[in-house]
């Protein structure tokens, strides 16, 4: 491999990682400016003492957890159904929902909720955020689980049926166990996607449902505060770990 190629790859990797690296480095800077003045955890302490941030974190964790559980369950069953009975229309719908711009998805969900809730007299809030998150997480779950199902041997389940298992038993005792790593990977992916979403969340959120990304967005638009750097650093490390874990699981 030529030296030039290595150098070019090095520069491009630097381009990919320097912004995040700088952000993390300056989150432990003992100064509010962009001049390095020594190591300090003070911005992390500030986060810890900020009730607004703690509240938004609690909201985000709650929303991400509930939407992960729901979307993983529904998505896994949907993928299983798609594997058993191929349906081009449904598969296409899954892919289309993945390429639909987030802002379009957001306004469409908002329009739907407003249309339905007007008659039920329900306000936007935590529940609409969760419902929206489930909507866009399902597609990811279906993709990951279906990819695993397609590498599996369908005759195993047929064998179980021949030996007297009911359809449910065949799914639960034969197919599901070998799907577990893929389902776990899908759940991790759903969690990180949900935890991170700003565009759709901000459109369907109510007064009681400020999430962490919404808070970061609001703070980013105002003057810079290094505590946002600290917050972002935590998110990068946590989500990065989750994603690496998900990739591990998918491979095994």
């Amino acid at each position, binding site marked *: *491999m*030529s030296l030039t*190629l*290595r150098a*070019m*790859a090095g520069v*491009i*990797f630097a*381009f*990919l*990682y320097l*912004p*995040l690296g*700088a*952000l993390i480095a*300056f989150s432990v800077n003992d100064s509010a*400016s*962009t001049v390095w003045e020594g190591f300090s955890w003070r911005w992390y302490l500030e986060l810890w003492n900020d009730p607004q941030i703690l509240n938004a974190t609690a909201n985000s964790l709650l929303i991400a957890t509930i939407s992960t559980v729901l979307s993983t369950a529904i998505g896994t069953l949907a993928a299983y159904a798609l594997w058993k009975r191929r349906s081009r229309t*449904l*598969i296409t719908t899954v*892919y289309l*929902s993945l*390429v*639909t*711009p*987030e*802002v*379009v*998805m*957001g*306004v*469409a*969900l*908002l*329009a*739907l909720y407003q*249309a339905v809730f007007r008659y039920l007299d329900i306000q936007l809030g935590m529940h609409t955020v969760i419902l929206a998150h489930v*909507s866009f997480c*399902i*597609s990811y779950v*279906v993709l990951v689980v279906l990819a695993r199902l397609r590498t599996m041997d369908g005759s195993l389940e047929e064998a179980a049926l021949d030996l007297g298992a009911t359809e449910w038993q065949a799914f639960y005792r034969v197919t599901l166990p070998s799907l577990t790593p893929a389902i776990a990977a899908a759940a991790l992916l759903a969690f990180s996607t949900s935890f*991170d979403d*700003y*565009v759709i969340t901000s*459109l369907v959120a109510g007064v009681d449902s400020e999430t962490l*990304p919404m808070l*970061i*967005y609001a703070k*980013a*638009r105002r003057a*810079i505060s290094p505590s*946002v*750097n600290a917050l*972002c650093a935590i998110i*990068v490390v946590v*989500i*990065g770990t989750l*994603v*690496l874990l998900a*990739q591990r699981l998918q491979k095994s």
Partner: protein
Amino acid sequence: MVGFFLLPMVVILTYSLLTRGTYGGLGLPWTLENYQRLADPLYLTIFLRSFLLAGVVTVLCIPLAFPLALFISRSGRRKLLWLNLVMLPFFTSLLVRTYAWMFLLRDTGLVNAILLKLGIITSPLPLLYNDGAVLLGLVYSYLPFMVLPVYATLERVDPALLEAAADLGERPWGAIRRVLLPLTRPGILAGSVLVFIPSLGSYLTPDLLGGGKSILVGNVIQNQFTSARDWPFGASIAICLMLLVFGLLRAWESRTGEGIE
């Protein structure tokens, strides 16, 4: 899937055919007026600008992705490690990555601070809140989408072809340009679709890095649904954007015979 995706889409299509009510609500009669308003030069310009910006982003991603993909395809055992390193920033929060660029590019940001310190400039450069910053942010965000398909096609190229080119007197870069580059065209095309589509519909990046000055289609839609409170019009723009995205995908599918899968 029907309930979670198709239903909202049907509702938004319905909205786009309604009239705006007195207090920003919805009303009858049914109308096509919202679509006619799109023909206004103002909105045509915004669509055109979005297309142009997404196009430039795509073109810029190609020369960045190609060397990276080539490097990865030739790094033997460590391929998977490098691939994961390319994908990792992509998965870690679009918002955080965009914020990182704000931190670098602000008037009081890191880049200006370093340049001032070195005495290269005397007053901060206006790096943030312009089209250049949006461009940079989009290239940064969607570069992995170009690297992966290019890498996938490079993997399928027979290394003997490069040896043959070398035997016939091509220098390494000539061989790359005249042999490898044409062979990876399908990958570059696939990558272009994958970069172009999210760039076209992007909202967060132009909003934060463009600071409201760099208006793209996504921002107009969001604006119609929030501050402007003209839902039917916003819905008609959303439908147009969707149709454009799906049309592009179909065109690409029919050209290459590949699915979006």
